[in-house]
């Protein structure tokens, strides 16, 4: 076991969370709606971080868990120690993406997020058809929801032309300045 004190320190620096505060009551997992789907439920994530084991940290960066966390905040609201698990998840996601360790099976989720951000980057707002197109292009799920779109359009729910805001330069600037 490679003990990696540094990465935990870094985590604390970024999130302000001291992972040692967790005493493993499991309430977060009990309330987590996606715990069933996760490879490591939230309380186990906390314990893996507590071990400071580098290998376990790598497993987390590679996990489905971090991409399945939906940031619903159930865990932190019920955590007796008020540990900000959603913040930890944010941190791990960012680190995972930054280090190109995104879990294979979770790439759909990340693809969706990226498509979403692309839409904002170029128009300032979410262009839903563009989003779905972008997502499909990234995932090759070309036939998904083919029935939904026409119906949405018929209900007046999908504008076909993207709405561009005036400050797109400003938006692009934001994307450039915050690029990891």
């Amino acid at each position, binding site marked *: 076991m490679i003990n990696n004190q540094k990465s935990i320190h870094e985590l604390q620096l970024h999130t302000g969370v001291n992972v040692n505060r967790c005493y493993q009551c499991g309430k977060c997992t009990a309330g987590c*709606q996606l715990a069933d789907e996760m490879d490591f439920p939230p309380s186990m994530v906390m314990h893996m971080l507590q071990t400071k084991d580098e290998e376990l940290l790598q497993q987390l960066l590679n996990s489905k868990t971090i991409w399945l966390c939906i940031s619903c905040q159930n865990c932190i609201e019920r955590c007796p120690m008020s540990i900000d698990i959603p913040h930890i998840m944010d941190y791990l996601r960012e680190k995972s993406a930054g280090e190109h360790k995104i879990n294979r099976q979770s790439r759909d989720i*990340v693809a969706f997020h990226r498509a979403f951000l692309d839409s904002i980057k170029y128009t300032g707002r*979410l262009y839903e058809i563009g989003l779905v197109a972008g997502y499909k292009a990234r995932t090759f799920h070309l036939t998904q929801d083919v029935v939904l779109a026409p119906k949405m359009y018929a209900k007046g729910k999908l504008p076909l032309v993207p709405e561009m*805001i005036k400050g797109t330069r*400003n938006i692009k600037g*934001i994307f450039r300045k*915050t690029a990891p």
Partner: protein
Amino acid sequence: MSEQIINSPCGVKGTIGFYPGCSLKGSSSEYAQSVLAVAKAFDIELQEIQDWNCCGSTAAHNLNKELALSLSARILALSEKQGLTEVVVPCAACYNRLTVTQHELNNDAALKQRVCDIIDMPIKGNLQILNVMQMIDKYVADRLEEKVTTPFGHKVACYYGCLLVRPHNILQFDRLEDPQSMDILMKRSGAEPIEWGFKTECCGAGFSVSRTDVVAKLSGNIVKDAADRGAEAIIVACPMCQSNLDMRRPQINEYLKQKIDIPVIYITQAIGLAVGLSPKEVGLQKHFVPAQFA
């Protein structure tokens, strides 16, 4: 139970800003329509924030914290620039992002400075950000009952979702578990809100497209509990919740192995109907699961 539902700060009534967010311009246009219709019915003047952008939603928040803060911050800055002191944000996700962003910036001067540099605009950070419940409570609640012409006489399950009430310490909206604000407003509109177990459980939110299976399961549990307890409609205040519970109904029914046809409508649609607006005026025809109330 306290009837004063929200500890809303008293402000001077004036023009209120309106941040629709992307969903309300697209897939949830009926929400925008009903919010504006109800506002009009109560003489509340809403002013759309000029040149607003997307708040970044879960995507930005998941991938890049600074980007997420900056996108939301731009909206705050624009509102301030427009001279607004209050902004109504009907979408629960946008409401959550904007409120949390303002809170985080106000609590970290260095971060605030960095973000202001990124968006190239100053931020004071004293905007009142209201969700629709807060807007109604602040400007309509005391007039609501007298305005009701056709009481919304149905059993309803008020579904708040996760983002509307969390994180509690930042949003300071309603109570932590088993929130009441929507229930109280619905009661005043003539409905009969039911006690149920899934008020704040997550619907699957942003996984609508990428993990439809998860949405079917999470939303399925919600729809089932509401239906089991005899609700005739699920009332929501979030476009994501609405679209997951409504548009994903085929997948939900498939997961539940049961056909449930309980409609999912926005609180502003229900209130609109109660104060005498027509179904069309509140965009009721736009839902996938037919919503017809006699």
